């Protein structure tokens, strides 16, 4: 009985809420999961705690992370975007083709990001003024954009190298974006990820736009009667998502330096959504933080890396990945008392 009372009391502080707070109950769980995972790997393997390996992990999660930041905005606004894998492919390949066609880096990048923004805008229009469930709208776009990418490249792999006609300097700069290292050790991709995460965190936590995203996702009706133009906010979230998906796709091509419309970013959408939701965002909107998303992304990256280091058979890896996702979110849920 005293237990129940205390429960009530304990609920109060949790009630205080602000998106800027660094660690919320929600994230604490995920953070704990990540921590225990790392500790375990630190002892279980010798390769894990090396700076090289950690920076590798950093690089390997960067593209997923960049997209997850965008997905955080979309999910908080109460929508979902399944087309990110296709945008990733289309924009990346488009940019690559432009560079091969001899364009300068600036214009090529701009064009690539614009395609992402455009597709995102379309996603937004369909999910707001078009009054389609964003799941359907973006599912449709998923296959439309994939088809467009296949048509654009005629199904052929796109490889950005001098042999295919890319200008040497442009190529150098482009490759640096994807393969370069700062101070010789920190991968450029990671820099991009951290930069965008920081930016996303700032926008979401401190700007009026960020506030509106939360408001719109929490209750579109309430936001509407307060004079927030719900549709505009959601459309912007989709555009942001589109641009970030495009950026990730471009970086991927800059890293590889080759992609193929039939394969690049296939099924990526589920990874991105998983990472974001593991990080505490909710499909029903109004919930989520960038920090949580970063943690979610790291959990997935660290786990993949760890399983490989431990020499777990690929099939068992597949099994473990699912298990860890469930446990990661579970820890958070099960550590907090049920509030019916």
């Amino acid at each position: 009985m005293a237990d129940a009372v205390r429960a009530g009391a304990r609920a109060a502080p949790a009630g205080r809420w602000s998106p800027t707070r660094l660690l919320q109950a929600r994230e604490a769980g995920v953070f704990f999961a990540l921590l225990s995972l790392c500790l375990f790997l630190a002892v279980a393997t010798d390769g894990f705690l090396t700076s090289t390996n950690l920076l590798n992990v950093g690089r390997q999660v960067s593209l997923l992370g960049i997209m997850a930041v965008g997905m955080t905005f979309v999910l908080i606004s109460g929508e979902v975007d399944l087309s990110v894998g296709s945008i990733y492919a289309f924009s990346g390949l488009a940019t690559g083709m432009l560079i091969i066609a001899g364009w300068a880096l600036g214009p090529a990048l701009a064009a690539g990001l614009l395609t992402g923004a455009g597709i995102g805008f379309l996603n937004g229009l369909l999910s707001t003024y078009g009054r389609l469930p964003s799941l359907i709208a973006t599912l449709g776009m998923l296959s439309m954009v994939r088809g467009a990418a296949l048509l654009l490249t005629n199904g052929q792999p796109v490889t950005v190298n001098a042999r295919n006609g890319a200008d040497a300097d442009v190529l150098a700069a482009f490759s640096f974006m994807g393969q370069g290292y700062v101070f010789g050790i920190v991968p450029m991709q990671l820099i991009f990820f951290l930069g965008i995460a920081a930016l996303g965190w700032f926008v979401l936590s401190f700007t009026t736009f960020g506030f509106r995203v939360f408001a719109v996702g929490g209750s579109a009706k309430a936001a509407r009667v307060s004079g927030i133009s719900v549709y505009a906010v959601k459309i912007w979230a989709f555009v942001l998502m589109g641009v970030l998906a495009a950026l990730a796709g471009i970086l991927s091509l800059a890293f590889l330096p080759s992609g193929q419309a039939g394969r690049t970013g296939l099924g990526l959408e589920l990874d991105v959504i998983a990472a974001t939701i593991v990080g505490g965002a909710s499909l029903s909107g109004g919930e989520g933080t960038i920090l949580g998303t970063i943690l979610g992304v790291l959990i997935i990256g660290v786990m993949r890396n760890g399983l490989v280091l431990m020499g777990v058979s690929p099939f068992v890896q597949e099994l473990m990945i699912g298990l860890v996702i469930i446990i990661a979110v579970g820890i958070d849920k099960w550590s907090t008392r049920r509030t019916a």
Partner: protein
Amino acid sequence: QSKLADFPLADRIKAKVDAGEKLTIYVSYHDVSNEFAPFMKAGVERAAGEGNVNAQFVGPVGADADAQISEIETLMGQMDGLAISSVSTDALAPVINRVLEAGIPVVTFNTDNPDSKRLAFAGQDLVQSGREAGKLMADTLGGKGKVMITTIDAAAQWSIDRETGAREALKAVPGIEVINTLNTGTDPQEIYAAIENAMLANPDVTGVLSLECCSTPAAGTWVERNNAQDRVKVVGFDLLDETVRLVGSGHIQATIDQAPEQQGFEAVNLLTRFVTGEPIENVDTGVKVYTEDNIAEIAKN
């Protein structure tokens, strides 16, 4: 031809070799979840036994270039040798070169990566095997007919290579027309449905040339279920159970084996020989053709 002498072998590996320690060789296959992985793996293990090395059979579940790269990056520290079959030539070439620069010997198998500086390749010349398939198709059709090429993954490197070869060979035969390649998707139901629909859409197709394991039996099954053996000929790849049966029953005219077990074996074998100082060069695992006449060799045991 590559020799250890010309290769800057990493000190830690050299030390191991001198100390006569067991080397750890990683074999990265482009999709460990496809039907050949088990055969390749078997070959890898056989070679590991004979060559007295630890061989780890790794690779992505589902062909995924990023995953394959990440895995290699992660394992670089602990590999004394790498045998790899690339998801995508262009995407994997840089990593392969990075591994080589680290003083770790790298060979390719099954799917070659000519753009990289790999030491040698063990497997089938895919373009060549494509040509063979093309020729077989042309012959079974008696030099004239309408051919549909099918593949479960038009995007895959091996598929692109084989298609190149096949089209080349078929173009050489004036009486033969080749229509749109059919990309069937990878789920068995999808594959069959795609072929079923395509045959309805193109009733005048007389030859189906499948580029891989899995649309081959599907095409044969379609012929069998529609009693089309007289008007539609099928040429394909590999020796899945159903393929073997359908060749036997005359619904598939010819299939090309690529000896996956041997490819796996050679992959490791090349590396073990290389580190012991033996010069190595490409190993062609050959193109063995099976028809109704010799399919019996594949005895079920």
